[in-house]
């Protein structure tokens, strides 16, 4: 054997350097869980600009943070907020209402439809959801046509949505890019299938033998880049490792609300305080707080 398998683990700096201004970047996770926050912060820290951001079906405030940090030109997101902590993201409101970001109105399945079309090499995905709503008026990529079989019903042709990068949080990954979620997968697999390249942020890099123990639990195969970032999901939960940091999220909500209301200073200080390299960021949270977020495993194999 002359050649060996290629290992794809990189430092967070080297990994994020691969993402270029103007690219389309999809951010995995869902709600308050499994967002690749260390990579999101590194994107902000390195000043990426003019990104088109594709959010998960129910984004949390990771998208709001990217918007508030000035990285986003266009947003494709069915929802931006944090459920009861913050029904609508404040920076999202601020930038949307002022027209500073372009928004392609979408929905959960219109998003998945685009992912599906991209992953399966089709010209479009046919879907009825959105007919009879304002979404097609607010998203010119969607084309209405008539059911070719029944000849009466209106259908939307949803074109492929093919991000340059899908950035996905996994519980653990081997050095070759095979990752496993330890809890819910949400829409991460569909997002990853659609993208040209996958970057996983993993709580831990583990030996290949750990992955092979139950290959049915592998969710992301063949990631292009793997970044190890313990507590990289903070302030959000990482299923199987820790829960969300509610205090931290509420502080975010407060500072971003201030920004929406014109208090840039509070917001700028917030960014200055927390946008640091990963371990410096964790220092701002504090080890006691981090360790308090522990959740015991519910499923193991």
């Amino acid at each position, binding site marked *: 054997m002359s050649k060996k398998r290629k290992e794809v683990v990189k430092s967070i700096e080297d990994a994020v350097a691969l993402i270029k201004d103007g690219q389309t970047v999809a951010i995995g996770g*869902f709600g308050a869980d499994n967002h690749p926050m260390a990579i999101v912060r590194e994107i902000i820290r390195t000043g990426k600009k003019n990104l088109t951001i594709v959010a998960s079906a129910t984004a949390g405030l990771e998208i709001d943070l990217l918007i508030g940090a000035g990285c986003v030109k266009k947003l494709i997101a069915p929802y931006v907020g944090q459920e009861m902590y913050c029904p609508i993201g404040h920076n999202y409101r601020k930038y949307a209402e002022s027209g500073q970001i372009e928004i392609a109105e979408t929905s959960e399945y219109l998003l998945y439809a685009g992912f599906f079309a991209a992953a399966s090499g089709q010209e479009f995905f046919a879907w009825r959801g959105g007919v009879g*709503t304002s979404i097609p008026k607010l998203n010119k990529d969607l084309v209405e046509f008539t059911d070719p079989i029944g000849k009466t019903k209106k259908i939307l042709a949803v074109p492929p949505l093919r991000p340059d990068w899908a950035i996905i949080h996994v519980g653990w990954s081997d050095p070759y890019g095979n990752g496993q979620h330890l809890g*819910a997968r949400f829409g991460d697999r569909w997002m990853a299938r659609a993208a040209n390249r996958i970057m996983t942020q993993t709580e831990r890099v583990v030996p290949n033998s750990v992955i092979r123990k139950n290959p049915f639990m592998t969710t992301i195969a063949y990631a292009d880049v793997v970044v190890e970032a313990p507590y990289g999901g903070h302030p959000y939960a990482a299923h199987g490792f820790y829960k969300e940091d509610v205090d931290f999220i509420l502080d975010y909500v407060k500072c971003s609300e201030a920004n929406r209301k014109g208090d840039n200073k509070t917001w700028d200080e917030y960014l200055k305080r927390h946008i640091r390299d990963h371990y410096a960021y964790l220092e701002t949270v504090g080890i006691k707080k981090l360790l308090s977020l522990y959740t015991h495993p519910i499923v193991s194999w």
Partner: protein
Amino acid sequence: MSDYSWKEMMAVVFSREIEDTDKITSGAHTEIFFAATMLAQKTHAPNLKLQLGGSVTLCQVTDVDVPELPKTSTGYELIRYAESVHDHPDTYLFYGAPGGKDYYKNGSEYRDVNHFWFADKFFVGGIQADKWGNTNMIGLAGKDGKMSFRGPGTIGINDIAVGVRDTYVFLTAHDKRRLVESVDYISHPGKKVCRENEFYGGGPKWIVTPKCIFDFDPDTLEARLHMTFPGVTVDDIKANTGFEVKTAKKVGSVEPPTKAELEALRNEVDKTGVLRH
């Protein structure tokens, strides 16, 4: 209303709506919704097919202890109650009965084919709702095509509308800004739009506000006052609604939670009082 909160009342009222044969997928107002459905499984609907959470987490708590009512739709602890977990996109083609058919319905032991493939019931939120039951999560129209208020986004309500039997529109306040003649943007189509587009889904069954419940006239498909919540007058509702309030033949009053219902809620589902605050 001093001995129970509005959230507790809503959980109980919605729990009563749930039938043992239902399949239900979680929607807006997570904590109320989770409480209502878990309460139903524990009281009168042990066969309720229940998807909670953003990853097709099929939950069964009939015989399972619930130490604390889940507060978010995404938390890891939901897996504690799960018999099956899938990918979120599968909610549109997988949850519940395969393809989302009826279950033990229509007198037969086995379900008949129907097209309510998504679910039987679904909670919908909104920043506006109009007399047709059209609901808006997108925003309020401003000048030059901009929005004066950017809403949270439609999430999946448009997708769900095609194939859910009944939706329940929930508004957290009742005033003329929220209940309008015509919504600025449509996220969730009302019954009329659903019918015009030949959706299998029936559109909204109710619009629920802190003051009352609207249902829909089966002929005109317009909202009409169906029931008031305890202590609310029809005049109060008319004065605070942005469309002309038509009324059902007999406007009922929502029966407050009984002692037994509240006890079941608090002892079996919401032990720590998430809904009480």
